[in-house]
């Protein structure tokens, strides 16, 4: 046990002495949360739109005002003719054009159909669809209010409620994803690099000649990174609650335990990589390509898994981050209890045991 403490102490020295790496590891969650929280977002805000109003009446003006008042749109252009539409789109000045037909207000008042054309720039299809939807809903809303005033006997009103995330904040989605990403980098990559480095340096050999049990050498390597991960999880949760206003709806205890489990999964992955990688560069590449990339692409945090082709969907099932992402989303955002995530937890647990067993076995055979 005393020998083990010496090993752990040494590992802390390594982490502590490499100040730059340590700062990166501790600063990364902060950076990622801030970037995803304030810079990168899928929300469409203040999009530039243009209006071609062939009618110029009270109704069109009222609708235009409504559009301008919404935080989604910025009216930048009053377009005078159909010919001017194309250049406005080509130059990128506008992303959406709203075209009112002639005599719009008149037709509407007399109970005829009045048409509005919405033209979107579909070079980015997601943004175009979102903008069209926003604009339609602003217009529908206006129409509904007009009808209510006109005291029509009946009207259908749809009421939309967004559950769990009423403000449709992107943060709800990425906080669990960032957590998975950070743990992948801190635990898996750093652990594998530190073990491979020891082998590259030749110090591993010297330790193995000593009476110390090899598996303890490895365990001692995991501990500092385990602690770093704890700090990172805490800082991510604190940032998301106090800076991004993403509340922890479910049990904090359960959330922390799930994070611990995933940390161990990832440590096991790091071990696995270190047991096959021959050099620090290989270890780094393997962690980035084999762990980090799937976390970003296949965990469902950037791209919904439901929409993926069968092959990728199947592949995503072996990505531990996917399960972790699912669990955290459900516990943290939806506030579900263990009874709803036990299956996923079990899968994660199974993966952990598997990776641990394989890497420890691999590690032993390598010594022979």
């Amino acid at each position, binding site marked *: 046990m*005393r*020998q083990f*403490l*010496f*090993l752990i*102490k*040494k590992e802390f*020295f*390594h982490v502590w*002495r*490499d100040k730059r790496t340590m700062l990166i590891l501790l600063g990364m969650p902060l950076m990622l949360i801030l970037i995803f929280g304030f810079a990168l977002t899928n929300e469409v805000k203040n999009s530039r739109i243009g209006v071609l109003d062939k009618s110029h009446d009270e109704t069109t003006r009222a609708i235009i005002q409504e559009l301008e008042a919404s935080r989604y749109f910025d009216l930048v252009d009053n377009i005078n003719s159909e010919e001017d539409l194309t250049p406005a789109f080509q130059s990128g000045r506008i992303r959406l054009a709203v075209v009112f037909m002639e005599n719009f207000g008149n037709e509407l008042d007399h109970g005829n159909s009045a048409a509005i054309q919405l033209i979107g720039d579909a070079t980015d299809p997601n943004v175009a669809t979102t903008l069209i939807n926003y604009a339609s809903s602003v217009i529908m809303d206006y129409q509904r209010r007009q009808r209510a005033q006109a005291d029509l006997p009946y009207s259908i009103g749809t009421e939309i409620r967004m559950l769990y995330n009423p403000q449709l904040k992107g943060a709800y989605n990425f906080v669990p994803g960032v957590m998975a990403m950070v743990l992948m980098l801190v635990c898996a990559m750093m652990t594998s690099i530190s073990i491979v480095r020891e082998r590259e*340096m*030749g*110090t591993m*050999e*010297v*330790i*193995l*000649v*000593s*009476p*110390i049990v090899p598996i303890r050498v490895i365990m001692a390597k995991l501990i500092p990174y385990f602690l770093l991960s704890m700090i990172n999880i805490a800082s991510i949760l604190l940032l998301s609650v106090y800076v991004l206003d993403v509340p922890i709806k479910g049990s904090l205890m359960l959330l922390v335990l799930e994070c611990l489990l995933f940390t161990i999964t990832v440590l096991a992955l790091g071990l696995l990589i270190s047991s096959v990688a021959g050099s620090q560069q290989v270890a780094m590449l393997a962690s980035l390509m084999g762990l980090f990339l799937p976390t970003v692409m296949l965990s469902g945090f950037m791209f919904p898994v439901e929409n993926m082709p069968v092959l990728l969907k199947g592949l995503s099932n072996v990505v531990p981050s996917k399960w972790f992402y699912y669990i955290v989303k459900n516990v943290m955002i939806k506030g579900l209890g263990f009874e709803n995530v036990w299956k996923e937890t079990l899968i994660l647990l199974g993966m952990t045991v598997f990776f641990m067993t394989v890497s420890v076995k691999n590690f032993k055979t390598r*010594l*022979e």
Partner: protein
Amino acid sequence: MSGNTVISVKDLTKRFGSFTAVDHITFDVKPGEIFGFLGANGAGKTTAMRMLCGLSLPTAGKATVAGLDLYLDAEKIKQKIGYMSQRFSLYEDLTIRENIRFYGGIYGLSNQQIKDKTAEMTSNLKLGKEVDSLVKSLPLGWRQKLSFSVAMVHDPRIVFLDEPTGGVDPITRREFWTLIYEAANKGTTVFVTTHYMDEAEYCSRVSIMVDGRIDAMGSPSELKSKFDAYDMADVFLKLARGAKRSDN
């Protein structure tokens, strides 16, 4: 296995697939000897030494180290041997004191013992002032000497040195050998691989490996007369000319 052998090896063999790195080697080492293990690159010296240190399992053959069986008592052997690898084996981002503490610690020395060892080593190596600076900042020669002292931190009965003086200037090499002599005088058996032939002259006995076999063994003067050579380099050349494999 009797009182006057500290290492006893019989028909020790190591195969990697179809390649026989070490081919039925047999030798004994007496306590307090400086046993030189010579050979060209790829002759199998390091593999043989790694087996004796417990880093690699032999394919066949028998061996006892410090009176303990290599197969049955591998763990007990570890406490009785020291090892210095070809590559520099101290932690560069730790201070000298921390390195000594660490290696002392994993060999189970008490805090007092570690303290005493640190004082002893730093005064021996005249590193008193640098004891709290990072190993990174030491010149290579000092590092090698420190590395040797650290390999001896737990007063092992046998110390294995794998090409300890590679890339070191002649003066430091001489100083390094002074350390080896001091250790041997205190009764530690030194098992050293080298390909510097002048160093072979310093050994009590040498064995010369060619293609995984031991082709000659004896004291430097015996070998020189046997091969009618004027120095060890000559002996070595005469033997190595018959070698079939070289590095890679």
